């Protein structure tokens, strides 16, 4: 019951947010230079063809009407078709305007659904790596504020957050793939292709985890229920393991919700560098090609994920700490 009402409310709020996002992106892509009809039929088409295409797609209608139409498609799960990408998934260009294959463009939803598992795999592995790297550091720093553990965590964090990750990606790819030949780094043919990008991504994420964890553990350790716990008869291992980390994990969860956007930024460029066929590469290519339906679809999709993850984060947080109410 609680869960249901929580979900109903949050999904409703999320829907409002998504509506705003969709409208904003939709409007943005309608007002920027670059006539969609022209983009669809290609540069070489005569103006009549462009006009005809615009008419066909209803691009001459007022933006709100177009938006409602788009929303209608959206609720039916239709994110539209790419301007350029054929169903085969190949990168194409320079085709003629009357090309019959122009009608055979890939559906945006399909493209997203094809790429998202790889991106999730990458992000997931990166988060695992990041946690493995940061947990010991962050916890040790939080338990020993001012001591060498704290300083180590501080400097590691400062260093990691200062490494431009795309540059690191280039360097790591060079070292591990070219010089040492240990790990593959370009494209995707199997799970091992995820490792290097995930490491780069993890290095980008871990400073935030280290910092949040060390601060929140240090704070929790000052809490009365922790300082009083040994007097109550609890052992230190139990106090730290069962109570301090548990309480410190809530700021960590919130961090994930907030830093998701930043994570995505790194993800995008990491995918580009490693030529990793995920959502990020799809997006960058779409932007470079001005493939509006894909950009729009990705933006809406990511906003939706963002909304969902934040709901999940809040749900998890309120599961850990029932005081939190949403």
């Amino acid at each position, binding site marked *: 019951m609680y869960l249901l009402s929580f979900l109903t409310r949050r999904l409703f709020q999320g829907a409002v947010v998504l509506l705003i996002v969709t409208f904003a992106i939709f409007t943005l892509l309608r007002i920027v230079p670059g006539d969609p009809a022209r983009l669809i039929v*290609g*540069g*070489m*088409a*005569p*103006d009549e063809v462009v006009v005809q295409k615009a008419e066909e797609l209803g691009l001459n209608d007022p933006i709100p009407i177009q938006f409602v139409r788009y929303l209608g498609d959206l609720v039916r799960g239709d994110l539209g078709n790419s301007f*350029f990408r*054929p169903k*085969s*998934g*190949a*990168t*194409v*260009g*320079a*085709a*003629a305007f009357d*090309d*019959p*294959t*122009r009608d*055979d463009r890939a559906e945006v939803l399909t493209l997203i659904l094809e790429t998202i*598992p*790889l991106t999730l*795999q990458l992000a997931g592995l990166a988060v695992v790596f990041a946690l493995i790297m940061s947990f010991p550091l962050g916890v040790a720093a939080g338990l020993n504020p001012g001591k060498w553990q704290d300083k180590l965590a501080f400097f590691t964090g400062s260093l990691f957050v200062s490494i431009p990750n795309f540059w690191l990606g280039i360097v790591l*790819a060079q070292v591990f*793939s*070219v010089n040492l*030949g*240990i*790990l*593959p*780094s*370009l*494209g*995707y*043919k*199997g*799970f*091992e292709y995820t*490792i290097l990008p995930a490491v780069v991504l993890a290095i980008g994420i871990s400073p935030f985890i280290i910092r949040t964890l060390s601060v929140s553990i240090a704070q929790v350790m000052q809490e009365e229920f922790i300082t009083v716990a040994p007097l109550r008869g609890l052992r230190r291992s139990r106090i730290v393991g069962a109570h301090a980390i548990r309480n410190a994990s809530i700021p960590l969860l919130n961090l994930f919700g907030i830093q998701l956007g930043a994570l995505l930024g790194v993800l995008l460029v990491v995918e580009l560098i490693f*030529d990793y*066929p995920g959502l990020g590469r799809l997006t960058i*290519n779409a932007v*470079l*090609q*001005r493939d509006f339906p894909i950009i729009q679809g990705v933006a809406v999709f990511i906003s939706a994920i963002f909304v969902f993850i934040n709901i999940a984060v809040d749900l998890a947080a309120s599961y850990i700490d029932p005081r939190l109410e949403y």
Partner: protein
Amino acid sequence: MKFDRRNFLKVSAMASVITGAPMINRTFFSSPAFAATDKVITFLSAENLTGNWDPTSHTTLGQINLESFVFGYLTRAPMTPGNPDEIVFELAESMELLDEHRLQFKLRKGVKFHNGEPFTANDVKATFEYASQPDRPAAWYPGLCTVDVVDDHTAVVNTTEHGYPASLFWFLSAFLPIMSAKDLADLKTLASRPNGTGAFKFVKQDGNTTVLEANADFLGGAPKVPGLNMTFVGDATTRMLSLLSGEADIIERLEGEQVETIKAKQGFAINEAVSVENKYLWFRCSKPPFNNPTLRKAVAHAIDRDVILDVLGVSGTASNAWVSPVKFGYVDTPNYPKYDPAECQRLLAEAGFPGGQGLPKLQYITSVGFYPKTKEYGEVITAMLQEQGFDVEFSAMEIAAWADNLYDRPGGGPGDMIDCGWATGSPEPDLVLRTHFHSSSKRICGIEDAELDAVLDKERNATDPEARKKIIQEELMPMLAEKVPSLSLFTSVFIHAMREDLKGIYIYPNGMMDASKATNT
């Protein structure tokens, strides 16, 4: 356990099976199948495809290269330096000029298209008559033509009604892929998959990879390799790293530094050859400000092509004409625009823009990842032009985005100058000259000039090759040097790199390949 790559693959493959992840390492499971014999060749292509399999729908080199695997040609032109005019017969068994307007092909018997249809003279007729239509984007044909079917295996190309000599098809026959008449009756099917008589059959398009398998019925005998995967990779470094890591067997369009790197490693071979490709700086001649030839000339005089060659290193060689030295009709054009700042300034002033004053911002578009060093010499050219007072804005685009901006369009193509090369698998110069500078085609520069049209028609209609060569060398080239619809920067040197175990692959000077005899162990 020693932690090496192979073990690692095992572990990770197992891990992904255990966790139920859908990603299974395909190379790990499938490679033993061909371990003993020849392997599928993986070729990384530098240019994207168009998405339309109709060979007449595009002039994209990447796709032309692919077509050379799948389609059959009446003849092939190896264009070796020692014997540039050599013609090898493929679908034709012989070729004979019956008269000025009639070229007869005797066709090979028993050849089948990949879809099982037999190859006959009707296919030649359908191909030529369809592909020579002026609305076909790939304007390779010198003009409309008719094909007379004498019998199933004799076809006569007839240009009587169209007013130009049939001899033009002599060399051209090496560059025109032959399609099935049945496909041509159904253009949708034609566009949806390539269907030819070549050594490799199209299986599927898998993302950027075109999967081909050996055609056991190939007229030259079944290829030794089981198949060929051609993958578009739009980044030169990625292509090289893939070759070095063993993920690719052959890659194209290498740059000087990459050649050095690969030469320093064991197990790779390099193939270098002066190509039929010239790289040009195309002006958008159909719109201001470059509809003014004086201004175009001013630009041409501002560019020091020696510096560009320095930047290119091994990937380019000088050329003072609008066709490659490998092509018929090449000449060291005497009035070819030279680097001359003073002349540039004079012309600028003459055009009404002294010192560049009053010129609009000029957009210079180039591609990255395909041609070697485009971005590098693009920056150099930008700097050179800026030095003369041209306000140039430089944009380097991904190859596919660039391709969409490449061609002339109503009102003029995007930007003011665009970088592009032109390579065609035949010594025939009109594949460049007529395609680009005749007002019936004007692919990129969009020039419409009656004088040029007249000279181009004159040269095309010349029946005697020597006379034709003379017209090209003494009238057309000098005229182009005056009108500069584009500036030819240099001739490309094509550099391919491959694993040493890949043997017997033949690379044509336009980048097309013959892998029918290749072995890959």
